[in-house]
């Protein structure tokens, strides 16, 4: 029986004197979708960036697959372990074509044939992207860009996908599609750690949820239980639950 895929222990991150994350503990089990909920500024993106090696943690440990300590690795090495990122606000390479963005997703592999095959699979799955594959990524609509961002992350066939606010700025119908997509590739074995403000839809697909408030994990439990709690509605008063 293998342990959790990702274990974040006692993670603290300070920006100068300001604590962004304080003593956070969370795990992602193999095959699960785990969601971190919290308002703006709660520290969600900081946690994601710390896992990716893009943000220096002040203390704590981040272990992948049991033994591998991520804090001693650089971002490109962390990606090579099988962790991919769907950044907040998509952050596509806007001056590159859709196809080139997908190719960048497969950068870590030097096996061109495999990468091209995986890209072809992605384009089959997303026919709208296939139509626009030579277009500059920056010229696509918000929903299409989100598809590119997700496809880009999936090209490397990651074991763990880190998603930062995938619903941000998208129309409700598109958000529904996005969450359905997450469920779909999770079913194929990809574990997901998602950060979201859209609590309702995220909790509907997640197995486990964490609540982050000013850098601290204040709530942790099975998604259904967290969804039923009163304070969830408090934290998201005004348009989310």
């Amino acid at each position, binding site marked *: 029986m293998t342990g959790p895929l990702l274990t974040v222990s006692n993670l603290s991150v300070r920006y100068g004197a300001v604590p962004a994350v304080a003593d956070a503990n969370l795990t992602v089990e193999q095959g699960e979708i785990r969601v971190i909920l919290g308002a703006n500024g709660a520290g969600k993106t900081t946690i994601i960036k710390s896992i990716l090696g893009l943000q220096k943690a002040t203390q704590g440990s981040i272990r992948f697959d049991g033994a591998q300590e991520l804090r001693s690795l650089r*971002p*490109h090495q962390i990606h090579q372990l099988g962790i991919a990122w769907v950044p907040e606000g998509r952050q596509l*390479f*806007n001056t590159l074509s859709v196809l080139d963005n997908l190719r*960048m997703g497969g*950068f*870590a592999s030097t096996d061109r044939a495999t990468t091209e095959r995986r890209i072809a699979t992605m384009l089959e799955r997303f026919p709208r992207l296939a139509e626009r594959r030579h277009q500059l990524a920056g010229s696509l609509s918000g929903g299409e860009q989100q598809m590119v961002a997700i496809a880009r992350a999936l090209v490397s066939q990651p074991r763990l996908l880190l998603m930062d606010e995938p619903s941000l700025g998208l129309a409700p119908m598109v958000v529904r599609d996005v969450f359905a997509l997450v469920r779909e590739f999770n079913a194929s074995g990809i574990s997901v750690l998602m950060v979201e403000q859209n609590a309702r839809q995220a909790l509907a697909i997640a197995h486990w949820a964490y609540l982050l408030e000013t850098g601290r994990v204040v709530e942790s439990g099975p998604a259904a239980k967290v969804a039923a709690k009163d304070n969830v509605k408090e934290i998201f008063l005004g348009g989310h639950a």
Partner: protein
Amino acid sequence: MILLLQQILNGLIIGSTYAVVAVGFSLVFTVLRVINFAHPDIFMLGMFAGLWGAHLVSSNIVVVLLLGAAGAGLFGLVLEQVVIRPLRGRDVLMTLIATLGVAIMLENGMALIEGPDPVAYPTLLPQAPVHLGGIAIGSRQLANFALSLLVLGFASWYVRATRYGRATRAIAERPDVAAAFGVNVDVIARITVVLASMMAGVAAVSVGALYGSAWVFVGTLYGLKAFIVMLVAGNRYFEGVVAVALGLGVVEALVTGYISSSLTDAVAFCLLILVLYFRPDGLFGSYAI
């Protein structure tokens, strides 16, 4: 009419050298976010590496070009390792000043060896008039032009069609995201500096062989213009840099031909002032730093 076309062609030829140096500048800037003031002197080193190679090894043009590229590339590698890398992440002004210091050292150091005046450069190719329509152009000028276009073509292919070239553009736009998709930014940064330096080296040998002279202070000539081209074009699009460089060459040639040769250098500066006033990010836009 013939004179006009003649001047335009001359302008394109000199503009193509500006383009090669400017593209090198621009590539390094967008990938490393540093202004490498020593780049024009890497150009100069390439010129002299070719010169020494021609005297010591062979005056076969291909050999001299390779030696020029190698010399420039080697120095670019050393510069990246010793000066640029340690200053990564610090204020961009630090690298600017440090590389400026290197530039001054190189120029004066070379002046001690080769003297402060222009020295003779083997011309490597025969000069023969070539007639295109009614225009006469020397075979050397044409070869210089062809070489520059070849180098630019290579650079364009590299950033467009190769894995590392794509990664270079990705880093220019979003370095964090690129790194998070497996790009080792340090390695690409080094490769970019070496490539930019080698390109400059080839262009330098080409220019030296064209005019039959090398000069330790030649860097200031091309470097300043190339820097201006980069600022005017913005660093977002490779093609923009090439277009502005060629355009500058043509306008300079027209000014020299029709107005006065003493105003030639003023063109670049006037252009810079105008563009910075109306479009400070450059004509074609820039990536945020």
